[in-house]
């Protein structure tokens, strides 16, 4: 299970404009040397530290899976599914996307987040592979943070402008 971040795979910034001002979530999906590799399902969300509704930032899954709908395995992201995913019938298109290849990704935080303490959570689940949840405490708009995954995820950080 050697893994390394493929920063060479490029940095993808989606939807740059105003929202980028709120900050950026950086995640590494590690390259794994395994016989059967499938891109992981990934959910990125924020939980207000003082309680309140979680806010999904992004969910990457196989929406166009042939045969059974790719939503079948959303519940493998069990942490996200429990607190946020199952509250809507299918992930809203605005926050969902296809699964990603190993690499570094930068995802803008929503521009309308209220200041305050949050836990950023990144969860990855991979077919025939493992599942991992990485948490990063942050305080918007000033205090970012970082943490390291050990299997399904690499470095996870929140950088603020």
């Amino acid at each position, binding site marked *: 299970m050697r893994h390394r971040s493929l920063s060479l795979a490029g940095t993808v910034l989606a939807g740059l404009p105003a929202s980028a001002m709120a900050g950026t979530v950086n995640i590494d999906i590690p390259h794994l040397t395994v016989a059967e590799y499938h891109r992981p399902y990934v959910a990125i969300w924020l939980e207000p530290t003082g309680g309140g509704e979680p806010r999904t930032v992004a969910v990457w899954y196989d929406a166009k899976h042939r045969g059974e709908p790719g*939503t*079948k395995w959303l*519940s493998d992201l*069990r942490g996200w599914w429990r607190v946020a995913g*199952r509250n809507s*019938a299918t992930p809203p298109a605005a926050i969902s996307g296809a699964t990603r290849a190993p690499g570094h990704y930068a995802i803008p935080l929503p521009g309308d987040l209220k200041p305050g303490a949050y836990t950023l959570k990144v969860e990855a689940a991979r077919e025939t592979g493992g599942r991992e949840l990485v948490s990063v405490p942050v305080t918007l708009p000033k205090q970012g943070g970082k943490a390291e995954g050990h299997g399904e995820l690499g470095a996870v950080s929140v950088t603020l402008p």
Partner: protein
Amino acid sequence: MRFLNLALLATAAALALPNAASAHRAWIVPAATNFSDQDPWATFDAAISNDLFFADHFPMQLAQIKVTAPDGSAGTIEHGATGRYRSTFDVHLTQEGTWRIGTESTNVMGSFKVNGVEKRVGRGRGGPPPGMMPGGAPRPAGEGRGPGGEGRGPGAPGGEGGRPNIESVELSAIPADATDLKLTEAISRNEVFVTRGKPTETFFKPTGKGLEFAPLTHPDDLVQDQPAKFRFLLDGKPAAGLKLTVIPGGKRYRDAEGGFEAVTDKDGVAVIKWPQPGLFWFTTSTTDNHPATPRATERRLSYTGTVEVMAP
């Protein structure tokens, strides 16, 4: 079903009741409890055994199991099959929300005397209760008992195993001049809940009758590091002091059973701390003197369930 013999059915019925002298447990185990699919199927095993969830004794009878959709309508068991040790079946979760899959039975058993002669009612340790014998299948030769030697044959007149020869009659057949009535009304439920999408509370709204599971923590919202609050009501009021027995599955791979107890507080709430993720079986029962059955003297109520606890 045709192949099942009376002894097996009677035993299955008897064992579905807790407080039976044995540790046999009835269980319905889902492969998973939460579904994100747009067209999900839940699949189950159901059996009666000592160790959880090791199917090595008797299958639960599919005819006993009812499926209820989130909107309260009846669901269906599909792809049902009953093997020597367990039944398996699927439920097509055609609606969003929480589904209930379970059994509910009311049996009256006990004894009375007529002119000093003792007679029995209901199955007791005797014959099966009404409705437990679809088709009245004949008893195949040589299949009188399970390998475990249960010694619980259908207590037809004639008895067996050296037991006294006591006649067993229907409840309705108790004569007016009967004396020494000792009749127990036993109401037991055994349920499991599975959820497609967002959990719903349809099945946890109290009806005010009998022993009810009215959890404060939804049974499809269980995580190992978060204690669950399971509330029980008796005739609509908090069932205080109720003892819950909770047993993790996987006994086959441990030395000890690993079960533990939780007791309900004045609000009828038991707090359950999960020692590990996985499947858990729980049961509770209580007895009082408020049976609904005329001439019954005691009411025994039990609730049994299986839940899935996720890793954090």
